[in-house]
């Protein structure tokens, strides 16, 4: 998100007012108020050739006040609009969770759950083409941690820039990625690495550090903490753009891990409106693949009912509509098995760094 794409305060307020105006105009004509949104499901995302990521398609959904639930959503949207305006005026910001609690005072406009307030904030982003940073809303979600020989500058609470080397200036838990990783807050200064490896689980992240994998293979390790937060995806995108370093993704072998990769490389369904900022189309899925379960004879678990449903859904997800993914998903369905990253420990603690990763990296031309 370069500065040129960021909107001025007035632009943000104006685009929020357009939402309120759509409602008001309709009521003046004697029609129920409403709000028009793109459909936010896998059926309405498509590959954008120009951007190289998945974006929302043309399907729209109308939220109008003919049903109680939708009418409440409209009222809440207006309350959020008012709240954002107030924050913009007073130069404050709040977390999504704080907004959820503040809504307690909105009477009939209060949220039923935090999920609801998060979704509505996203709806507003999509409709107004603003970002939640424009709305002065922050996530409380945990950013990633990074360990590796890269140097960044981060502007601290006092507004001073501090330089941090993510290998030498951090403890065992690594450098914590802040929620805002834009230029105004974070600069990528220097690096001496060959690639970046994003890792799903904390256990594997710690294993690789203990085995000294980052230095040996000259890479930076990023712990994704499950489904990666926006800032995690954004910083990977910036590393890819600014340093032109390859990004490889190392996860468990199960349908949910496939989705983690898809959100990094192709764009997440929930945030398809900003895929071009968040998705790193150059990212590569390293493993664990369904093939690996067989090739390395890994200990595996049976797929649960939810796993099976998730796999089935992925078959019709446009992001997985490539020969390789279809093959992997079908193979997994056939096996009826899934495996964890840590199942590699079957062959000893060093197996992952001595054998598995070198072999896999060699396979994609990143051998060391």
């Amino acid at each position, binding site marked *: 998100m370069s500065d040129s794409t960021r909107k001025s305060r007035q632009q943000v307020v104006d685009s929020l007012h357009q939402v309120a105006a759509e409602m008001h105009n309709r*009521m003046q004509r*004697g029609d129920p108020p409403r709000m028009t949104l793109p459909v936010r499901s896998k059926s309405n995302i498509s590959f954008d050739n120009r951007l190289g990521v998945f974006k929302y398609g043309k399907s729209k959904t109308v939220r109008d*006040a003919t049903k*109680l639930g939708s009418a409440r959503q409209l009222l809440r949207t207006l309350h959020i609009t008012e709240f954002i305006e107030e924050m913009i005026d007073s130069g404050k910001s709040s977390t999504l969770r704080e907004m959820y609690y503040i809504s307690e005072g909105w009477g009939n*406009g209060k949220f039923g759950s935090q999920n609801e307030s998060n979704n509505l904030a996203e709806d507003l982003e999509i409709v107004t083409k603003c970002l939640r940073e424009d709305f002065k809303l922050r996530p409380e979600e945990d950013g990633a941690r990074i360990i590796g020989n890269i140097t960044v500058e981060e502007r601290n609470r006092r507004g001073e820039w501090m330089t941090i080397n993510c290998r030498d200036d951090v403890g065992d838990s690594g450098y914590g990625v802040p929620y805002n990783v834009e230029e105004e807050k974070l600069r990528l200064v220097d690096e001496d690495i060959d690639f970046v490896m994003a890792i799903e689980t904390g256990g594997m992240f710690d294993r690789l550090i203990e085995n000294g994998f980052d230095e040996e293979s000259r890479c930076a390790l990023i712990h994704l903490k499950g489904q990666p937060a926006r800032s995690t995806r954004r910083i990977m995108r910036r590393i890819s753009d600014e340093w032109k370093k390859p990004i490889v993704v190392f996860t468990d072998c199960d349908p949910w891990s496939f989705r983690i990769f898809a959100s990094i490389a192709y764009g997440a369904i929930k945030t398809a409106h900003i895929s071009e900022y968040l998705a790193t189309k150059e990212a590569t899925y390293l493993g664990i693949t369904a093939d690996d379960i067989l090739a390395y004879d890994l200990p595996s678990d049976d797929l649960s009912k939810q796993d099976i449903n998730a796999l089935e859904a992925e078959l019709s997800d446009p992001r997985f509509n490539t020969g390789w993914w279809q093959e992997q998903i079908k193979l997994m369905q056939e096996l009826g098995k899934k495996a964890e990253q840590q199942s590699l420990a079957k062959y000893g603690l060093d197996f992952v760094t001595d054998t598995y990763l070198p072999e896999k990296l060699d396979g994609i031309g990143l051998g060391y």
Partner: protein
Amino acid sequence: MRVRATISRPRSIRELGGPDGVIRMNEAEEISSKQKQISVSEFFEKNKHFLGFDTLPRAVITAVKESVDNSLDACEEARILPDIRVEIRRTKGDELELITQDNGPGIPRDAIENVFGKFLLGSRFHAIRQTRGQQGIGITGVVMYSQLTTGSKTHVVSKIKSDSSAVYVDLGVDTKKNKAIKSGERRDIWIDDKTGNEISHGLRIRTQMKAKYQRGRKSVYQYLRMTSIVNPHASISLVVYDKEGSVVEEGSWIRTSNKLPRVVEEIKPHPHGIQLGTLQRMLREANDRRMTSFLKHNFSGVSPRAAKEILAIAEVEEGRTPKRIKADEAKMIIAAFQTVKLLKPPMDCLSPIEDLLIKKGLSKAIDSRFASTVTRSPSVSQGNPFQIEVGLVFGGDLTSDGPIEILRFANRVPLMYQQGGCLLTKALEAVNWKSYGLEQPGGSGIPKGPAAVLIHLASTNVQFTSEAKEAVSYNEEVFDEIRKAMLEVGRGLKNHLKKSSQRKKAKEKFELVNIILPEISKKSSELLGREEPDLAPVITQIMNAVFLEEVLSWDKERRLSMCTITIHNYTARARAYTILAKWPESSGTSMEFNPRGGRKEARGLWAWRLDTLDPGTSTVLEFGISGLTKGDWNEADIFFRGNGEIIGATKMDEALLDEQRKAEALEAAVEEVRSKDVSSHTNEMRAEQSVSDLSTESSVSSDVTEFVPSADTDWFGMEGDDQ
């Protein structure tokens, strides 16, 4: 072995010691002469399983059951509202002490031995009426079981009203002589250990036995809970203690009705249920001189005309002496029984619970939102009168994730075992519950959901699948009647669910246009700095319907069941309607408060014509019913005539209303003829006649037994929840 004979507990207390406290010795002797008596212990040992003492958990249930059934029967006969207390105390290991106490008539001193010490076996052939006491072997079995398993005596305290003191006595059984052994007999004033008052009549039994108290679906608790449902006139309590004396289970079901079940009459057998052997025996024992009078006097449902017809078809002369009828002639008579049209047997031998009381019974045991009950008219299968009652409760505290609870009863006795093999269950499973709003995986079987269904079969002859008497055996007519009753309560449920969902929808719409929409308008105008828009046209567009809401309430001061109907016109056009309401019309109720007038359309259906309702306006209609008690009426059906739909009311089905009116006219005609005549036989004959006459005009079946509409007959399938 002799056990093949039908085992029947001859309601010993009633037969041997009447409620008046005087033993009807001649009757008692008469009964015992008809009974075959066999050695008790021999019998007991061989038949433990169907006497209900085969397992330790079941033994205590059976003992409670025998004792409570006796109490209920005795109270019913003596016209006393029963208060029954059950106490169970674990004494050691697998042993426990059971105490039951009632406020019944008590047993006279001299009858105690017989009631508690003898097995009475035999068939009571001529007595055909509905009784609880068709199960097990009675309280004697309990005394016996106690003695066999613990070697102890059963302590009895009995007080009859006419004595000044109570009899205290310990009882055992002499298994060789099949006799009770009395010991420690004394007389004393009986003071209630709970209240400290002197007891004027009642019975208390304290006995030790090898048994185990268990909780759950098959427990004493469940048995008493079920018993209380079908005996809303009884107050029953249960306390269970462990070895240390702390309470482990407790239940108390207070009576919800002061109406005792009516005393049932014995009836003569109906020709449709007679077997050849029985007929031959009756012929042999008959004192009648002529066959015509034999048929008339020994059977129910046989009019003089029918008797003549039977004999003509069987080619037996009317003047023949019954004793001289040969076997092949008897066969011909049996065949003729099936071809001649006969009147139904009289139905006063049955004692239905009646739907209002079922509702009360269910509501005292189960907390629910909705109850729909049906008492079907009595019906006949193979000459045996029977009657089906069904109750369905829904919502409230009932759990929604498992199969529904099925409460089965035969002649007011709970059936707790062998649910799957029972006709009552099978009839329930055969209904397509999905179409009535309950989940039913696979389209048949026991439905799932927050519901419980009660099925009561009242009959002079309940046929069980086995001697254990826990499952009713297949019978097409009974099956059909249960199915029909289920469909009725099902429709009640469906209406209720439809109504609740409509009500919910309407409530949401009101909230939407009255609260949320004005806030949207206000907030958006504030944000934009614009004028607030006029919302009236927006509201009309959002609602675009006429809404009807009815509220039932209880007017404490006037003792009226009030119904308040509000109609809102949220359309862009003026509307005119006639509103019709179903109300529980009966001889005891009346439309006491009705400022809007209107008129009666049919039994239990009142109509009001409304003035034109302009767009955006509403009107209120109110009426009050007297003769009900609080909570009796909790679901109303509202219909309308007019164009367009009303959310919250059903369009009147005029064709069904016509049918209902015809049926009512017919019934009135039958009733008129009946009331003119005194003799029941001729009166039924006349009714038959008059119906035949009527039928030529109204083209209805001429068989009176087929269609006499009962007071409960309902119209256009909306019955079952109108109380």
